[in-house]
């Protein structure tokens, strides 16, 4: 067992029994999360991110394959895992009729933290989460962002080596999201905590140092965000056509165009040679009376890479079928 590997799965499969047969939610996922890493499991809704997290934690049984955390098997050492990891469920709720302090103390005691340790840790933890001024407020009266911070504080109170966060910033405003991610950054730097986070947000994926891209129960790519972006061939052009639909129909058939994605009123176009193809596209569209506003080359972001990889995956799947 590699000491540096904190979370690992091998050909993990999870099927749910439904009326007529079984639905495969996880279809042979193999992943590894190394110590101190922030691993982002990204993918669209329904890709199997939550199910994967739950199986790793032993909250759901697995159908086949292996999964373990800190060397403990997800199914056999359920309670040993629960003593050593922190977790924020996606649709989580802390008891809303308990105050911030009561919540943290409840989770501390359930996690077996002694009273002396509680006195030492809890003020620091609340300070860290920015909740020091709200200790007597009922959890249900907190804003969405503060609820998430409280959940993080509760999941960290037993000082776990690894935390698993399932879409922790779902339904939170952009400022609070940024604050939450800054907390995660502090956590990794100061304590070396391993963080496993599921998220559909691409900007959050950029903040991870390793990304697993999940789609329809499979891990279709996993690497650093930089490498993932390089997986998409070609370079990216962005512009705003004066007449969107005809432009969107026309551009894919032009020479040198590898892929076309829409981005609001803009088109994102992967091409082999940005200078040359940019001019060609402008000319071709101009022939149809369409002008191109703000034609420029941009850096490929996770969002474009993500869409591109998923498209290829589903195209490959339909070819195979």
């Amino acid at each position, binding site marked *: 067992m590699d000491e540096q590997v904190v979370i690992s799965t091998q050909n993990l499969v999870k099927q749910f029994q439904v009326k007529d047969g079984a639905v495969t939610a996880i279809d042979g996922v193999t992943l590894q999360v190394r110590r101190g890493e922030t691993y982002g499991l990204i993918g669209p809704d329904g890709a199997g991110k939550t199910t994967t997290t739950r199986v790793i934690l032993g*909250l759901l049984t697995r159908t086949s394959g292996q999964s373990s955390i800190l060397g403990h098997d997800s199914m056999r050492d*359920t*309670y040993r895992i629960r003593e050593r990891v922190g977790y924020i469920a996606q649709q*989580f709720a*802390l008891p*809303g009729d308990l105050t911030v302090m*009561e919540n943290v103390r*409840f989770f501390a005691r359930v*996690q*077996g933290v002694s009273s002396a340790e509680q006195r030492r840790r809890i003020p620091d933890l609340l300070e860290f989460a920015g909740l020091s001024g709200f200790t007597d407020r009922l959890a249900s009266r907190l804003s969405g962002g503060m609820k998430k911070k409280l959940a993080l504080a509760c999941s960290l109170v037993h000082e776990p080596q690894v935390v698993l966060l399932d879409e922790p910033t779902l339904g939170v405003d952009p400022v609070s999201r940024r604050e939450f991610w800054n907390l995660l950054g502090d956590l990794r730097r100061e304590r070396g905590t391993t963080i496993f986070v599921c998220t559909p947000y691409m900007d959050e994926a950029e903040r991870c140092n390793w990304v697993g891209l999940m789609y329809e129960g499979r891990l279709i790519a996993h690497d650093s965000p930089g490498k993932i972006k390089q997986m998409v061939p070609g370079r990216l052009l962005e512009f705003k056509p004066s007449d969107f639909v005809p432009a969107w129909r026309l551009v894919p058939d032009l020479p040198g165009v590898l892929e076309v994605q829409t981005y609001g009123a803009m088109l994102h176009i992967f091409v082999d040679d940005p200078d040359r193809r940019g001019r060609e596209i402008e000319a071709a569209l101009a022939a149809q009376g369409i002008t191109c506003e703000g034609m420029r080359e941009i850096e490929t972001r996770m969002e474009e890479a993500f869409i591109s990889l998923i498209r290829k995956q589903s195209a490959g799947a339909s070819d195979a079928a």
Partner: protein
Amino acid sequence: MRGVDNMREGLRNRIRRLSAIIQKEAIQILRDRGTLVMLLLMPVLEMFLFAYAVSLTVDHIPTAVADASMDAQSRAFVGALVASGYFDIDMYVADETQVIQAIDEGRVKAGIVIPPNFAAQIERGEAQALVILDGSDAASVSSGYSAANAVAQSWAMGLTVEKVARVGAASLGGDISLPIRTSTRVLYNPDRDDMIFIVPGLIAILLQVMTIGQAATAVVRERELGVTEQILITPARPIELLIGKMVPNLVLAVIVMLIVVLFGIFWFGVPFKGNPWSFVWLSLLFIISGLGLGLLISTVAKTQRQARQITLLFMLLCMLLTGLIYPRQPMPPIVKAVSNLIPATYFVRIARGIITKGVGLSFMWADVLVLVVYSVVVVVVSALTFKKRLD
């Protein structure tokens, strides 16, 4: 040594977890003021309802008298009926026809028809009087029937009872003449004081509905809110979560029990004839069976609404089947079998045994045994079904 230390640490953590869960549940119960006040006031409210609104016996029934004898004996008989407290003579009429007319018009609910030569018939021991009761009012019928019968018994005379009602007459087959037998229903309730009969049963029903409802909704609410997943990921064991939920509700149920008993004794004057300690212990047993049943329901109910519906169903079953109001003897076997699945059925008998009759355990060991087995089974089954995983 290491092993012993580990065990000690394990035990310490177990206690820490359990006390954390108990404390959390207690805070949550205390903080939900509205529900708490309702839980504590409901029993008192229901007792007043039973005492003053849904009284099972009816007295001071407005009555019409048709006395064809008008002699000393007939007047004395009517006087005895009035003295029983069950009949108020509102009017004197000429004959049976007018009595029935008065009942039909709703001016009275009962009529007494005394034939001519009543005194002479009494002397010969063959006196007959006719009591006519409004068949559309079941409570008046049963009260008037047994009251008139009791009076007639003391006069050693025959009595004919007839029920009439525009609605009821046909179904009763018109005139029914019943030879009267001694009523046995009032053996432990000679003054017909309903509360003596009602309070012990009410304790059983109130505790039953409360424990089932509290336990079921406490679990289902957390699952609905998503709290369960967040607590499930802690090292808390299912049995600790179950016990943690049961303890504060157990305390609450004991308080409710005490409120009802004390109100029964000091307000309604219900005598407590048996041993208070055995009553407390058996209540605890009964409360545990109810909480266990509630937890079991929580494993079936998906939403709070479902949990409440099931609790309501239990409330109805309790009212109808446990012998609180209606005797269980005449129930058909299937209904009886259903009532045997409700813990309150046993506790109604136990409570009446201890409070009203003052009998000891030896008279109701079978009911106690059933409750013990019941409690163990529901708690164990719900602990086994209370999963440590989500699927």
